[in-house]
């Protein structure tokens, strides 16, 4: 296997009609068409999906691991944002 200089692509697969595309992994390919074909061959061999998205990894912007505290900790103390403070009426089942 050569150490390829092809760009890296992130692969998203939708398993069924109505569900969201989910990130499943990454792969290398020279362009978008072959990235889709490679994704089909690498990630849908066991009938995992009915739709594939590929995005060049370079186009993904991510949060910085060093900023985890300032990004995410403030929400930890705001439990009132969870919808757990409602009285469920007696007649409602299966909540």
């Amino acid at each position, binding site marked *: 296997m050569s150490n390829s200089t092809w760009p890296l692509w992130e692969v998203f697969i939708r398993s069924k009609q109505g569900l969201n595309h989910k990130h499943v992994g990454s792969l290398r390919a020279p362009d978008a068409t*072959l990235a889709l*074909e490679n994704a089909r061959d690498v990630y849908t061999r066991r009938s995992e999906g009915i739709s594939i998205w590929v995005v060049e990894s370079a186009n993904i912007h991510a949060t910085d691991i060093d900023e985890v505290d300032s990004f995410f900790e403030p929400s930890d103390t705001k439990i009132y944002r969870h919808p757990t403070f409602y009285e469920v009426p007696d007649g409602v089942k299966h909540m």
Partner: protein
Amino acid sequence: MEQKALFEYVLRMADDSLILGQRLGEWCGHGPILEEDIALTNISLDLIGQSISLFDLAAALQGEGKTHDDLAFLRFENQYKNVLLVEQPNGDFAMTILRQFFFDAFRKPFYEALCKSPITQLAAIAEKSLKETRYHLKHTSEWVIRMGDGTEESHARAQAAIDHLWRYTHELFYEDAIDAELQASAQVPSLKAIETSWLETVKAVFAEATLEIPANNWKFDGGRQGRHSEHMGYLLAELQYMQRAYPNMQW
């Protein structure tokens, strides 16, 4: 008599699929990049899957109680009826892709036509295989275009593969008394129209890939009668080894 012709006909198809599948399987673990390694072996598995269905049908037509394994593993070289193209060595990646492209460009219109066969099992196999073959052709066409219209080296390698393999392509459209008999009763399609469709595909892809059809019209055949190139014996030695060494083994 027609039953015997149909047996031979199905066997030819099955052997094309099996031998090409075996060749592609040799790439397993040796692909130029992981993704393409998996793509080639996926195509290999599709072809071997097709051959199993075809061997099952052939065994039923033969009526000697044989299984698909008997037909796949326990015949002599001159009893295999595949075209010479599919047994040619993998060579470099360009050679493998061009061999596959020539074959896929034939198999797609062939299966399309065979879907209309009144032989229901054969039409069903054609329909299932057509979906796989459409993808194979798409994948190999993409690669032919990228190699031909890529770098100087990829272009040269693709053209060299074409120049070498061209002599084996016309055998894809070989017809003899077996075909004539089945065509007369409209059981199977004529290969004439399929050859036209094949050439259109080849020309269109080569035009985009800036590749040339060779002027040299040197042609080889013999595979349909069981006369194979020197590469076939080595391929069969590897294919048949386990069944020959451990008869009736299963896994």
